């Protein structure tokens, strides 16, 4: 400590140690904060049609378009150490030979929900409007509230989706997904903290963190639909990834 330089080095060295320790304590402190997530997920409609992976593909494969209703309350997952939550819904189904071929799981919808004090980024989820009319909101406050990742007047983590179109149409690696039975729609999430470990959803209760109740729905994939399916019904939802510059 006899020198300006050695003093700077020593203070900075101990600062990094203190910062690391405080971050570790912050990461562990979230265990004390109770969580009570709940969700109600229902299938609205599922259609299976023939399509091509790319416009130049010669093979036609079967694609499933799954619409759903979701009413979820993930607001208690947001504590002081939550930067954002990645919520996603998967459709999983057993294979035709469960003893040798493992279960398939495909994501049909996802959303990036940042915390209230997290900085804005272009991939943030924008919650669809709850009102039936397509009119644009009149006041500035209404317009700002319509751009949030939660319904107006609520908080981050509340999701109220009715007849939601999926973001992704799913297909099987074999090309056939029609008439597969025992499929399940499940809500999952991944909490991304400011400091600490990533945490995924759980159905079990750990201390003050309750497991998710609900958030599951069973269904069967129907038979292949012919030409009576309208193109508008097969449109998918686009998320914040549309807002990125081109080429992405």
């Amino acid at each position: 400590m006899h020198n300006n330089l050695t003093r700077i080095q020593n203070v900075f060295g101990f600062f990094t140690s203190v910062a690391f320790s405080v971050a570790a304590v912050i990461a562990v402190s979230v265990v004390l904060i109770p969580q009570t997530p709940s969700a109600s997920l229902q299938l609205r409609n599922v259609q299976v049609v023939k399509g091509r992976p790319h416009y130049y593909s010669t093979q036609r494969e079967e694609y499933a378009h799954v619409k759903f209703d979701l009413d979820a309350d993930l607001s208690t997952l947001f504590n002081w150490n939550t930067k954002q939550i990645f919520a996603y819904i998967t459709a999983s189904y057993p294979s035709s030979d469960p003893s040798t071929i493992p279960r398939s799981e495909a994501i049909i919808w996802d959303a990036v929900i940042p915390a209230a004090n997290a900085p804005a980024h272009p991939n943030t989820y924008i919650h669809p409007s709850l009102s039936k009319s397509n009119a644009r909101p009149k006041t500035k406050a209404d317009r700002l509230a319509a751009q949030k990742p939660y319904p107006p007047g609520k908080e981050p983590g509340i999701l109220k989706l009715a007849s939601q179109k999926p973001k992704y149409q799913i297909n099987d690696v074999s090309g056939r997904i029609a008439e597969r039975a025992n499929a399940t729609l499940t809500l999952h999430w991944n909490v991304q903290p400011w400091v600490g470990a990533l945490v995924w959803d759980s159905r079990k209760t750990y201390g003050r963190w309750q497991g998710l109740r609900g958030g599951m729905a069973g269904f069967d994939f129907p038979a292949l639909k012919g030409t009576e399916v309208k193109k508008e019904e097969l449109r998918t939802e686009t998320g914040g990834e549309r807002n990125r510059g081109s080429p992405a």
Partner: protein
Amino acid sequence: MDQLLDQARSIWEGEIDFEGQRLVDLLTYALLSLSGAIAFLVGFSTQDIYQTLYIGLGGTALTFLVVVPPWPFYNQHPLPWLQARDTGRVALGALGLEGISVEVDGQRVS
């Protein structure tokens, strides 16, 4: 010119005496640990991680300001240099080295 360079060197190095260095050690650990603890407690009670960040960084900046520059109160116990002595017989006697002869290249020096 030499005097100017000496002054510049003194400013650049920023030396402090040993008591000052001990004080600086204590202050570094105390101030940084305290700012870390207060940052965590305020942030946890307000459930706002930005408070932790601002208090932690502010406390660190304060520590840098208090500890790094060679403030006068770090130089309260300077150690004086001993007087220069010639290596005559009298000096050798004072050191208790009588009877020692120093020879260089065959010639007795002292």
